[in-house]
């Protein structure tokens, strides 16, 4: 069970002029494993929501039809299991076991059967803790696995996964992929959205590429699709295997010291760390989930007060504040010197439209209005967000939100830019644009620190890499 049939399907979100997805004709048979591709904003997440019956009639306008085993997906939900991109918002209960049991209770599974099924689902995804583990104490990767267990326990005929490994460290991503591979029954249909094609290929036997304007661009076995359309797809933003990206090594030696840490830490989130960032250099920070990378980024960005050690800014970076550490600087001064991009793009947003979001920093640092307009227009253009200037930042697709959050930090042209996972969930084209953007900044003498799990990004851009280790007690 789990056959999908789409006929001329389209969906337009309420408040939007453009269709998120349109004119999709697609038939997926029982037991097929499909990789759904398409550039950022092509409507992949929207399509998955439609298949899961999660686009309420009052939240937009539909065209054409969707059927799961001949039923409207809003009625046939018991056949479908979905794992969203953000695991945190899909955990419902406080204890891990209860969370997996939640779906079973809703389906009216008899009490005696619930716990064996919960245990089996947890075992299949390799969940390392007991059922009583507090869901709030799980790292991102563990939450992702738990969410997967919650979907699998329902024994869905159709499993929908939306970028299930974004934000995971490479080891965690491998584990989740293994969990998916091991958890699928022979007749389970899988539809997977994942930008990094090479990693997803072992899981699938068919590739469907959405065309941004509407319709399906290519459909078939992976080798055939990539042989026929590889070059054009790569140019449009699909991560086609075998099409390398352009590396951007530094063109000049690194310049003066901008920021130095001395035994900087914040127990229990981050142990003491030494680090130095120079002008004209791109520094990558890597390490497993929970190692404290984001904490380090916040400390470097002057947003958290250090628990141990200190951050020293060079006189050049600190300007009039050279006596105080960055976390004591006034915010407008800070924003003009050190730009921070948060791991969760939505944490970055403080206004109601994409335009205001970009204009905020320049206005706060005292730029004249005409210059603000120019800066904003330039960034919108460069990151292909012009069409969305009036949109609410919270309604953007995953990739669009990520681009906007990077752009907000660039808007004040800070001397030092600190980015937390700047490239996750990006299609190939945006990815390359981000690499170029950071490389240009670096070559113009700015310092760039990027926290990342993305090995390609490190290879293409980083001049130096610092790897954090997880503290032995798991920080908790």
């Amino acid at each position, binding site marked *: 069970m789990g056959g999908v049939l789409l006929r001329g399907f389209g969906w337009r979100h*309420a*408040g*939007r*002029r453009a269709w998120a997805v349109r004119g999709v004709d697609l038939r997926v048979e029982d037991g097929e494993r499909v990789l759904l591709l398409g550039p950022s904003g092509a409507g992949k997440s929207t399509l998955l929501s439609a298949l899961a019956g999660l686009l*309420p009639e*009052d*939240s937009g306008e539909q065209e054409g039809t969707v059927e799961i085993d001949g039923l409207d997906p809003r009625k046939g939900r018991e056949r479908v299991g979905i794992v969203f991109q953000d695991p945190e918002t899909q955990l419902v209960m406080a204890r891990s076991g209860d969370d997996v049991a939640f779906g079973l209770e809703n389906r009216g599974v008899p009490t005696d059967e619930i716990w064996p099924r919960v245990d089996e689902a947890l075992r299949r995804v390799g969940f390392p803790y007991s059922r009583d583990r507090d869901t709030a104490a799980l790292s991102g990767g563990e939450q992702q696995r738990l969410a997967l267990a919650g979907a699998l326990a329902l024994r869905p005929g159709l499993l929908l996964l939306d970028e299930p490994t974004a934000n995971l460290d490479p080891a965690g991503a491998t584990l989740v992929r293994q969990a998916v591979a091991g958890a699928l029954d022979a007749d389970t249909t899988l539809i997977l959205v994942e930008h990094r094609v090479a990693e997803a290929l072992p899981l699938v036997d068919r590739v469907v590429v959405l065309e941004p304007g509407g319709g399906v661009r290519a459909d078939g076995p992976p080798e055939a699709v990539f042989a026929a359309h590889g070059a054009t797809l790569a140019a449009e933003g699909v991560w086609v295997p075998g099409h390398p990206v352009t590396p951007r090594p530094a063109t000049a030696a690194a310049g003066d010291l901008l920021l130095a840490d001395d035994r900087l830490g914040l127990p229990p989130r981050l142990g003491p760390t030494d680090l130095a960032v120079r002008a004209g250099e791109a520094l990558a920070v890597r390490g497993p989930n929970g190692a404290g990378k984001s904490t380090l980024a916040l400390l470097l960005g002057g947003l958290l007060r250090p628990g141990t050690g200190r951050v020293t800014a060079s006189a050049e970076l600190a300007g009039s504040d050279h006596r105080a550490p960055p976390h004591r600087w006034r915010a407008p001064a800070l924003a003009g010197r050190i730009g921070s991009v948060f791991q969760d793009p939505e944490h970055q947003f403080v206004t*109601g439209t994409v335009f205001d979001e970009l204009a905020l920093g320049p206005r706060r640092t005292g730029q004249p209005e005409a210059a603000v307009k120019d800066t904003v227009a330039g960034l919108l253009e460069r990151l292909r967000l012009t069409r*969305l200037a*009036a*949109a*609410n930042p*919270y*309604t953007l697709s995953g990739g669009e939100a990520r681009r906007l959050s990077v752009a907000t930090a660039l808007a004040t042209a800070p001397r030092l830019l600190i980015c937390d996972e700047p490239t996750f969930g990006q299609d190939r084209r945006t990815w390359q644009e981000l690499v170029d953007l950071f490389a240009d900044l670096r070559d113009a003498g700015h310092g760039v620190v990027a926290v990342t799990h993305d090995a390609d990004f490190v290879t293409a851009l980083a001049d130096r890499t610092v790897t954090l280790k997880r503290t032995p007690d798991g920080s908790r």
Partner: protein
Amino acid sequence: MDNTTNRWRTIDIVVASVIAVAFGVIFWAWGLVWSATEGAFAFFPPAQTLLYGVWLMPAVIGGLVIRKPGAALYCETVAAVLSALLGSQWAGTVIPQGIVQGIGAELAFAAFRYRSFRLPTAVLAGALTGLSAALFDFFVWNVDYALGDYRIPYALLTIVSATVIAGAGGWLLTRALANTGALDRFPVAQERALI
């Protein structure tokens, strides 16, 4: 928008609960940021009464956003249970207190048969929830205080504060929330320009 049936959708239940819970957290943060002034309120009781309306906001906002019978009562009750769980100074007694306060706002929405959610309704809801709160305190907590100097002014101030802060303020806040697009799946969401 499905406002014809009284059945609560999942989103109605969860968002109503979340509004209540978020207010609980905001009160908590208020204490964190202004722990100094909190102490000052203990020594200047009338000021506490002026802020009373803030505690009654979940009832009015819940009613205005969800627009279903029971929403005001539900929000205020959940907020009360939360503050009991977080360890409020009144502990368990906030629960019946929350129920009583919620009933006040609920009556106002019921008086308009859950059809009107405009400013006058919101103000009435604020006033009635203030009235019920004032009555509860009048009889349960304030009996030993001077009638003319304290009990009556306290009750009146509670009602005024509830009318202004919970009623009018709640209405404004609901409108501001709708403008952010967060309430797009609720009837309050205004028609917005297409992008």
